[in-house]
């Protein structure tokens, strides 16, 4: 029984529990068992099997009492360890927050619990969500459940920063997980492990209680095995929150009910600047197949131009570190987290020692870059220039969306790479987000859906970018691809 239940996604669990085909407790026990048996993946920083069970019991009791269950009724999920969870350690995968036990619950996680979800545990990630491979976590690398088909056992990156989330969903440790996306951190890991994930329009999901990285970019979203599951979970996560100054005061659409893969009358833009010299042949081929699938779904394909594409990554690597250097100033060894107080040290020495001991190398690198680009004399040349370029990038999308409804592109320029392959060179790691970052800078909804396997037997994702507030259009195009890609591959269990 248990191995069957962990093959189910969000909708199937919700419906099965509601119909009484199985109990929420049986589901929670099955996933708890998979989590407990998957320590080799290092996907979780802490596990909370008792919380998953407790939520399941509450759902079963509600059903027994004849009460309706929530949108996520009976569905256990993984929670990225960037969301503050009351009474459960929240670290952002950093040493500086090791042992930090929030006194409050983040808005998004609270909404999920209110919708009937239960927590399997806190998922590993790149430290402060800074990374594309989950190699910057203080708590060790997450190992992708996928392996290349070359017979070797090379450990592969699950993507990042939501690498624990992607690995857990792909390995059937959770039917779904939360992610956050600052410059691709939901979409790229989803693509690397053959699952779906959507970053909604900036402001849809409250940032309250999410450890801040780059506040003008950070946005939470669901990661799950298919488009419908993402739609359900996003409905539960989204909504206005007065505690987040940038929260959108808009009703949450019924995305699940609105799912429709018939794209007749829709136009899909293909951005010519994304077809880069030396593009990976399998990635290019999967993009071409995606175009054919959307044509088959009735869409008209149009060529569009996003002329400032090549400047998106450099602009991002000024803006995000600048915001990070400001946001991470709060870690000072006084109010929470680590304190390193050398003998005889004064307050300033304590700050410097605490931050030296508490932050990893990539976090320090980004804080230093951010401090530099914001410093007197350099602010205009770097930060203001980057924010102007950001305006142009957003304008590019606005112009393109006068000709099309959604944009189709690859999610990442490659399939999953091996752990250690890019970690020596920060720039080559940054370049992996080349297709993901533009939509983040423009605050647009964007989704990755599995498109097939490459010649190494590894998943590739296709990305759909939509107009602001048009998550439905993005989900629908995703559904059309999903119906034609028929992606059913899953990693062979070795852990």
């Amino acid at each position: 029984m248990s191995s069957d239940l962990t093959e189910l996604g969000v909708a199937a669990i919700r419906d099965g529990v509601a119909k009484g085909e199985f109990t929420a407790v049986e589901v929670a026990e099955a996933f708890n068992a998979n989590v407990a048996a998957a320590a080799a993946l290092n996907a979780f920083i802490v596990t909370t099997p008792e919380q998953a069970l407790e939520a399941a019991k509450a759902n079963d009791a509600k059903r027994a009492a004849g009460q309706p269950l929530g949108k996520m009724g009976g569905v256990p999920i993984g929670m990225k360890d960037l969301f503050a969870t009351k009474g459960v350690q929240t670290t952002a995968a950093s040493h500086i927050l090791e042992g930090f036990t929030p006194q409050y619950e983040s808005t998004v996680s609270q909404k999920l619990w209110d919708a009937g979800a239960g927590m399997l545990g806190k998922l590993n990630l790149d430290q402060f969500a800074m990374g594309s491979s989950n190699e910057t976590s203080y708590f060790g690398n997450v190992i992708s459940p996928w392996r290349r088909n070359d017979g070797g056992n090379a450990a592969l990156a699950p993507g990042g920063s939501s690498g624990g989330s992607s690995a857990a969903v792909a390995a059937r440790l959770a039917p779904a997980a939360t992610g956050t996306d600052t410059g691709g951190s939901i979409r790229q890991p989803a693509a690397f492990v053959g699952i779906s994930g959507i970053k909604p329009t900036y402001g849809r999901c409250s940032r309250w209680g999410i450890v801040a990285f780059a506040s003008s970019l950070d946005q939470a979203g669901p990661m799950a095995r298919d488009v419908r599951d993402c739609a359900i979970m996003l409905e539960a996560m989204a909504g206005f929150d007065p505690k987040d100054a940038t929260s959108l005061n808009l009703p949450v659409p019924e995305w699940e009910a609105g799912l429709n893969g018939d794209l007749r009358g829709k136009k899909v833009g293909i951005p010519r600047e994304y077809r880069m010299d030396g593009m990976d042949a399998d990635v290019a081929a999967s993009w071409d197949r995606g175009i054919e699938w959307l044509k088959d779904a009735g869409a008209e394909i149009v060529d569009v131009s996003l002329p400032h594409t090549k400047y998106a990554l450099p602009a991002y690597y000024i803006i995000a570190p600048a915001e990070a250097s400001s946001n991470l100033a709060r870690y000072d060894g006084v109010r929470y987290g680590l304190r390193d107080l050398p003998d005889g040290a004064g307050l300033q020495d304590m700050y410097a020692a605490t931050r030296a001991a508490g932050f990893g190398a990539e976090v320090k690198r980004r804080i230093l870059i951010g401090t530099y680009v914001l410093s007197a004399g350099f602010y205009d040349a770097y930060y203001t220039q980057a924010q102007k370029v950001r305006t142009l990038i957003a304008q590019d999308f606005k112009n393109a969306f006068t000709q099309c409804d959604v944009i189709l592109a690859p999610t990442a320029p490659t399939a999953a790479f091996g752990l250690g392959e890019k970690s020596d060179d920060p720039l080559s790691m940054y370049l992996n987000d080349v297709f993901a970052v533009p939509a983040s800078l423009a605050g647009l909804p964007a989704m990755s859906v599995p498109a097939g396997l490459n010649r190494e037997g590894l998943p590739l994702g296709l990305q759909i970018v939509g107009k602001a507030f048009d998550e439905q259009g993005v989900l629908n195009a995703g559904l059309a691809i999903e119906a034609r890609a028929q992606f059913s591959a899953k990693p062979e269990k070795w852990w």
Partner: protein
Amino acid sequence: MSVDTATVAKIAALARIKLSEAELAAMVPELNGILAWVEQLGEVDVTGVEPMTAVIENHLRLRDDVINADPLTGGDNRDGVLANAPAAEHGFFGVPKVIE
């Protein structure tokens, strides 16, 4: 623009991150690599372009000017605020002596 060891040391001091000599030496070429790469933004003609201030147009709200309007983010929660402090004493955050 490129940075030398002294500049990186100054940035690290501003950022309140203590770096060893070896870390400092390693950080200089890394930062220079990233700075040389972001330099390409200088090519973009931004004449008449406003820097972005809000990615999605939204108006900033003000909360009611009431003490503890929201019990979660208001006051009267000293113990919760201090619960994770590395050194809380007598209802305050404890810090090393700041007056010589």
